């Protein structure tokens, strides 16, 4: 959008960070680091960019969103609840028996999820297939897919990076496909650079035929501008390399591989929420703090 309401989006992203911490504290397991690094991107997509109708999750002309790095789905669940796909109070059922909020996205259980992901490397191919399907049907909808940097080590990612810019032939080029890399530099076992470096990544992507944009993935104005550029790019798909900070917003989680896949204990959750909310904290924070404080006591 030409003039995104940056302050509003930042406020939603802040709420998202608090809700991510809350969900994980309740679940007792999950992935805070990547959920916190991707939330600004998801907030911009869900509240500034994508066309969808939470009351008709299968509306044919909707833009599609696939979180290929499915382990960070708490960030998406927050956006979906905030957008009205389901009530906000369902967020704390994350990872509980019988909840549609599965530990990794389940398309069948939760309307609005476009594909099961989390077995890494697959979402990008499905997104390319959807972009192709929409083109073949003459639909103008767009497909957004968020990848992880560790995930980008998967062979299937490179299969689709190779094929997507050529898929569809001259009449159905996938300029409706936009990939976004949450480049936080950390994977489960440690730093991406040490385990299997992706660099020089933009050179590789350009060589494969992608239009590449590099941004700060926590700067909503930059995210918005990059999405504008992607939408204006004709003749092929776009790859946005979003540099992010794992655990962004919580000082003791930032850039620490330990917080890739560990839920905060209630005490840690309270510290995290206090940092994210700032002072004075918005009014909606108090009930969440009270709720988690009760967990500390029990």
């Amino acid at each position, binding site marked *: 959008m030409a003039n995104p309401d940056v302050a509003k989006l930042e406020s939603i992203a802040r709420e998202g960070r608090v809700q991510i911490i809350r969900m994980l504290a309740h679940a007792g397991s999950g992935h805070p680091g990547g959920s916190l690094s991707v939330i600004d991107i998801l907030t911009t997509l869900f509240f500034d960019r994508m066309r969808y109708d939470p009351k008709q999750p299968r509306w*044919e002309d909707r833009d599609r969103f696939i979180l290929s790095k499915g382990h960070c789905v708490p960030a998406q669940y927050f956006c979906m609840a905030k957008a009205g796909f389901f009530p906000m109070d369902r967020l704390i059922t994350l990872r509980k028996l019988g909840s549609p909020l599965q530990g990794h996205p*389940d*398309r*069948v259980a939760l309307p609005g999820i*476009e*594909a*099961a*992901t*989390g*077995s890494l*490397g*697959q*979402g*990008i*191919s*499905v*997104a*390319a*297939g*959807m*972009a*192709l*399907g*929409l083109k*073949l*049907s003459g*639909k103008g909808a767009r497909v957004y897919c968020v990848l992880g940097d560790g995930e980008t080590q998967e*062979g*299937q990612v490179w*299969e*689709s990076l*190779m*094929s997507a810019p050529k*898929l569809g*032939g001259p*009449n*159905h080029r996938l300029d409706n496909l936009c990939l976004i890399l949450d480049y936080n530099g950390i994977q489960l076992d440690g730093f991406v650079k040490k385990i299997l470096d992706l660099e020089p990544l933009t050179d590789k992507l350009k060589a494969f035929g992608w239009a590449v944009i590099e941004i700060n993935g926590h700067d909503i104005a930059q995210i918005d501008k990059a999405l504008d550029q992607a939408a204006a790019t004709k003749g092929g798909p776009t790859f946005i390399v979003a540099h992010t900070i794992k655990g962004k917003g919580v000082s003791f989680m930032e850039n620490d591989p330990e917080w890739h896949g560990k839920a905060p204990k209630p005490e840690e959750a309270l510290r995290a929420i206090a940092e994210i909310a700032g002072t004075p904290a918005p009014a909606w924070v108090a009930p969440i703090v009270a709720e988690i404080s009760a967990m500390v006591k029990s």
Partner: protein
Amino acid sequence: MVAKASRAAFGEALLELGARDERIVTLDADLSKSTMTMAFAKKYPERAFDLGIAESGMIGVAAGLALTGHVPFACSFACFLAGRFETIRVSVAYSESPVKLVGTHVGVAIGEDGYTQMGLEDVACLRSLPNIPIVQPADESETRQAVAYAVEHPGPIYLRLTRQNLEPVHDAAYRFRFGKADVLRPGHDVSILVTGGPVANAVAAAGRLAAEGIQAEVINVATIKPLDEETVLRSASRTGHVVTVEDHSINGGLGSAVAEMLGEIMPTPLKRIGVTTFGESGDLKGLYAKHGLDVDGIAGTVRKFLNR
């Protein structure tokens, strides 16, 4: 009807169905000459996609096409599809993407290319997924009807097709019914449950056994999953002896499905004929003889099983 490979019948059926159903698209991984989608690709170039030798990506793209209202046939050798089990498991099965998976070149019957190209574990892999039916037609007529059915099937489905020609075992009046096994020859001494490549051999073996006074009931199990329990139980309860025949690993295929079902509902003496080793290069005739899938092998196993 003449002998025809089920992959060839598939290619022809797809061409016909594609003319009246624009939702049909094909995906290949550099084997469209072998999977026989080449004719479709020539006629409908904008609806045929060769993803290169990249089967995982192909299956994922097929899932995306299926979830945007198209009817994608994702085709490769059966072993290469099953080898991308994880993508099938998550992007197709768990996501309920109505992809039509087509695995060709099944069994030791492909012969000279040897084990790495033989689909011998594909049924075992896909049978473990809750929502992917498995259909292996026995001849041209059944293949054409099974392909037409696959288009209409509301979810994902797997078609298992042969490289080699298949002798017709059905007459012109035959109507394929999804989930139903069909009795090709009635008998009361032993039930031979057979699927795919060896079906015609099983019928011939039954003819030979009849001359010796053994009345074998031959049942073509085209739908391996879900298994037609009713037909199998009806036959097994009459004959009291069941032999399964398949050009697939003896573990996890038709024989296993039958054993599991009978074991739970009506334990019945059972003999499974199938592949117990890796495959190898050789001619079809020699390989079928080696694995007991030819007429002699099937008849001999039945005799021994019945102590006759």
